[in-house]
């Protein structure tokens, strides 16, 4: 096992609002190896996006990382000055946002914007910059890239724009890309194309990715490992195949059961009863307990992460291990 490119330990990000402290991210830990794609899955408000923003240091007040560490290639990011962080953003760690409309400047051509993104980190001749931009556009699957550099964002479709955003994120061959639901705004066929290209790109370039999504189906076709978030915590993590085949946490099991592909035609889709609790008033103990049919008195204390081989879960009553002694 090689040294991970990104190592997150016990990361906690809290928002200090007038209504109280919101523990948006509460003790998240994971490692990411070179070229590895990790899916970060959860419902709205489970803290996946805040986790992404914490990694890249783009938290806005009143949010703050209160403890934990984020190590990128051995460098601690949480204690870096804003200035030092800026030189790493875009070159060593970059982010792809959800909305491809707002991420591109409507008044500049694609080429001009890519040029600005290159200039932010290195000095290149105009020819070299154009060659690099065209090469990356080709890599993300944009045909006749050289000509397209002269086009404006409005001349691109949503899928094409998101590819441009991905190409910009890849410009400096970052070690890690945080992708925050980059395909949510796109239609399914484009989504699939981009997913496959991203998987190839990760393999070719060695860029590791964190793919944030609420869609377990999308992520499972892309990521080699998964982390399931609930109410600011990772409730279960492990290799994608293992997690899908044999979930331990009742929430993961519920997510898998509610996938439309799992339902019999003509029967109602399975749901997880209730909704995500308000992060302002989390019940003590396991946050999932109120929605869990396996919960009992012991769930009033917070479960620790149970590690087993290359996977882990936070539950006193894991699914598929009812005796609690197997393996």
């Amino acid at each position, binding site marked *: 096992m090689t040294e991970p490119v990104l190592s997150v330990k016990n990361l906690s990000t809290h928002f200090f609002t007038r209504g109280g402290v919101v523990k948006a991210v509460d003790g998240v830990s994971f490692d990411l190896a070179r070229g590895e794609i990790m899916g970060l899955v959860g419902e709205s408000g489970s803290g996946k996006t805040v986790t992404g923003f914490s990694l*890249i240091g*783009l938290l806005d007040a009143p949010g703050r990382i209160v403890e934990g560490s984020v190590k990128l290639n051995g460098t601690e990011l949480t204690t870096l000055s804003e200035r030092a962080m*800026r*030189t790493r*953003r*875009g070159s060593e760690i970059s*982010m792809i*946002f959800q*909305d491809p409309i*707002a*991420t*591109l*400047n*409507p*008044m*500049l051509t694609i080429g*001009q*914007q890519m040029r*600005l*993104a290159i*200039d*932010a*980190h290195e000095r290149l001749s105009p020819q070299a910059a154009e060659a690099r931009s065209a090469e990356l556009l080709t890599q993300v699957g944009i045909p006749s890239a050289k000509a397209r550099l002269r086009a*404006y964002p409005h*001349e691109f479709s949503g899928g094409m724009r998101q590819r441009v955003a991905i190409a910009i994120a890849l410009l400096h061959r970052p070690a890690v890309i945080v992708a925050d639901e980059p395909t949510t705004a796109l239609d399914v066929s484009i989504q699939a194309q981009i997913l496959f290209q991203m998987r190839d790109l990760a393999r070719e370039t060695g860029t590791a990715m964190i793919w944030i999504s609420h869609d377990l189906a999308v992520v499972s076709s892309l990521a080699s490992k998964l982390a399931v978030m609930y109410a600011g915590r990772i409730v279960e993590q492990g290799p994608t195949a293992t997690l899908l085949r044999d979930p331990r946490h009742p929430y993961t099991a519920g997510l898998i059961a509610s996938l439309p592909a799992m339902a019999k035609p003509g029967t109602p889709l399975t749901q997880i009863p209730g909704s995500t609790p308000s992060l302002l008033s989390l019940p003590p103990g396991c946050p999932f307990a109120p929605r869990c049919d396996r919960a009992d008195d012991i769930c009033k204390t917070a479960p620790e992460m149970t590690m087993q081989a290359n996977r882990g879960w936070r539950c006193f009553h894991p699914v598929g291990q009812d005796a609690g002694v197997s393996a």
Partner: protein
Amino acid sequence: MSNTSTPLRRFWAEFRENRIAVVALVVVVVLILLAVFASLVSPQNPYDLANLSLMDSRRPPGFVGTGGYTHILGTDPQGRDLLSAILYGLRISIQIGLAAGFVSLTIGTTLGILAAYVGGRVEALIMRLVDLQLSFPAILLALVIVALLGQGKAQLIGALVAAQYAYFARTAYGAAKAERGKDYIEAALATPLSARLVVWRHMLPNCTPPLIVVATVQIANSISLEATLSFLGLGLPVTEPSLGMLISNGFPYMMSGRYWISVYPGVALIILIFAINIVGDQVRDQFNPRLRK
């Protein structure tokens, strides 16, 4: 029509569809050319007092004066050929209108974007100042400033700028504030690109459409404001009359049947402002997607 080469060319293609706006644009261009080449086009230099003869004063249109040529639009109380005076007056009016427009555009945009970009106390200070100023009528403010600074072109431009920069500041602030929150600005700020570059390349270009609209309206406004000040006797020196002063000069004679001294400069002023406003309206319509068919 579906020419997508450059935004400018597309803009022109759309502009061309409105015939009235095209006519108005032609009128504006012709008036500007006439004003620029006033010394070549007009029969007389109305600012050269040696050229003027009091014998020719207040003569009706068509009169052949001591200069030996026909005064097509008649003469004013100083014996100036009215056509020449109008062309020269047009030149002053357009000069002052453009100068005041551009200076207030620059100052107002800088203040507005600064407020939106920096935020916090700077934002509060600038924008409250602008609000405070917008609560006074522009004409009142201009009157006070001209009264304080005295007469002259620079002073007049100063007064117009002081009365008008606030509109630009408001517009630029609103546009910049909206852009500030967008992802691409956030993303650009997250990199080591300098703040100056982000403002110049990303923020300013996206704030220009509303600013262009305000600029056309405000240039017309400063021309009419200048005419108003001149009419009230607070504009330029009497020896170099602008359109407003020509109107004012002829005013006492209106009732005695010598209408042309006031009316023709007035017509010139109306045509100029009307044409600029039509062009401005068309530009505004094209920039406002909600008014698009």
